[in-house]
């Protein structure tokens, strides 16, 4: 119940952007299919997930940064700090699931996007779990401002390391289609959950010891 209330809070404080994100998440896959037909709709789905999760999480963080005492007030109410942290992870996962649903519907409506691919969802789940698994504990430890700069530096230097990654054997965008078993993908999903669980417990530990604003 409390987790739901906190989840609702996150959506309420960024409500202006949620609809825009839904529209963007729906438009990216067909657009990318048009621009990069060799990747079917996969590339578009990947971009829509990264864009939606990252941008909405950023907007929530900006609002929390803008009104730091609001979180303090919630903690003075019976909301536990653990729930406050967990709600952020659930928030990201809800957006991810929303992206999957939108893309799933699109694959039925727009045949050019290719068939609905559970393997792609599993791989993207791991990727997004890894991203928020790293991002959120850093943000809880260093605060929004410093984390923003760290990730800005990573993005600025991405032209240096991305080509190296691209040159690596099996660059990845289509490799999931040749992997053999569902067992492998179940394992990937489990690893994703493990990453989230470890990251969440670390974030809870950091936030529990923090002096609130």
């Amino acid at each position: 119940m409390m987790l739901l209330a906190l989840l609702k809070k996150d959506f309420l404080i960024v409500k202006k952007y949620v609809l825009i994100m839904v529209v963007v998440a729906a438009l990216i896959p067909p657009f990318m299919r048009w621009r990069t037909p060799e990747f079917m709709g996969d590339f578009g789905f990947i971009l829509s997930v990264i864009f939606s999760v990252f941008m909405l999480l950023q907007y929530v963080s900006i609002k929390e940064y803008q009104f730091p005492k609001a979180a303090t007030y919630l903690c003075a109410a019976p909301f536990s700090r653990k729930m406050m942290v967990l709600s952020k992870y659930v928030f990201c996962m809800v957006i991810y699931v929303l992206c999957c649903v939108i893309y799933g519907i699109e694959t039925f409506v727009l045949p050019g996007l290719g068939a609905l691919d559970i393997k792609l969802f599993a791989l993207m789940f791991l990727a997004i779990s890894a991203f928020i698994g790293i991002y959120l504990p850093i943000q809880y430890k260093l605060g929004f401002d410093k984390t923003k700069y760290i990730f800005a530096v990573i993005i600025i230097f991405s032209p240096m390391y991305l080509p190296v990654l691209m040159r690596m054997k099996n660059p990845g965008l289509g490799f999931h289609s040749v992997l053999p078993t569902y067992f492998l993908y179940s394992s990937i999903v489990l690893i994703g959950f493990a990453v989230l669980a470890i990251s969440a417990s670390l974030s809870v530990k950091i936030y529990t010891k923090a002096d609130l604003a």
Partner: protein
Amino acid sequence: MNDILTVNGLNKSYGDFYLRDVTFSLPEGCITGFIGVNGAGKTTTLRAILGLTTKLSGNIQFFGLDFDKNEKQIKDRIGVVLDDGCFYEELSLSEMKSIISSAYTSWSEQDFKRYMDMFSLDPKQKINTLSKGMKMKYALALALSHNAELLIMDEPTSGLDPLIRSQLLKTLIEYMKNGGKGVFFSTHITSDLDKIADTLIMIDNGRIIFQEEKDTLLDTYRIVKGDSQSLTTDVRKLFLSISETDFGFTGLTKQISEVRSCIPDVLIERPTIEDIMLGNIGGEK
């Protein structure tokens, strides 16, 4: 009379500021004022007892329950008003309420509506369009709508005009009449405490200076005014603080009979809480 809050040996460091062995208790059925100048440690103490900031050591009990072990249960039974509202300002009043209300097991929609009507607040209004006084009223409406047994407020009257301060104090008195077990509020506006407080706790430089019933406190101290020439070294020791001008001196003392016997020709007045607060912080001697 039972204590509804007991703080024992609370220590906390905040940069170069320290709370040192803060110990006090709140008796049931009382409005307790927590006084001190800006930076004395009032907000830090309140935050530490609400678990919003980590403490180095100390034991905190609400309603006889250990705070560390029963945090959720205790917070369900107390209402909190923090300084300047502390809301997501872009939300409407009803949106913010919908978040907060789900945290409390005894939330009363009826009480909330009554307070909203009483304070003339529109649920559809955005929080960032409210004045400081209206925000404080809204915070009070939220804090009083879940059958809280204890109300904790951090500087609730700071920066408010006299009319709103008066309404707020009236609401606190009504809350106590309607079954509230206690109010604990920090302030540096001591005139508010003159009107409603039963007990006073003073903090300065991170240390508790006194905890006393207001009437006893006002009976204990006296303001003395007289000629500065009568202030010998021994007489000065009888005062907590003395300020001198070309026309004479004004001092605060707890030893009125000794002062009277040393300098009979003095004017003696009953002090205000502010006089006592300032006298205890220290003045010229």
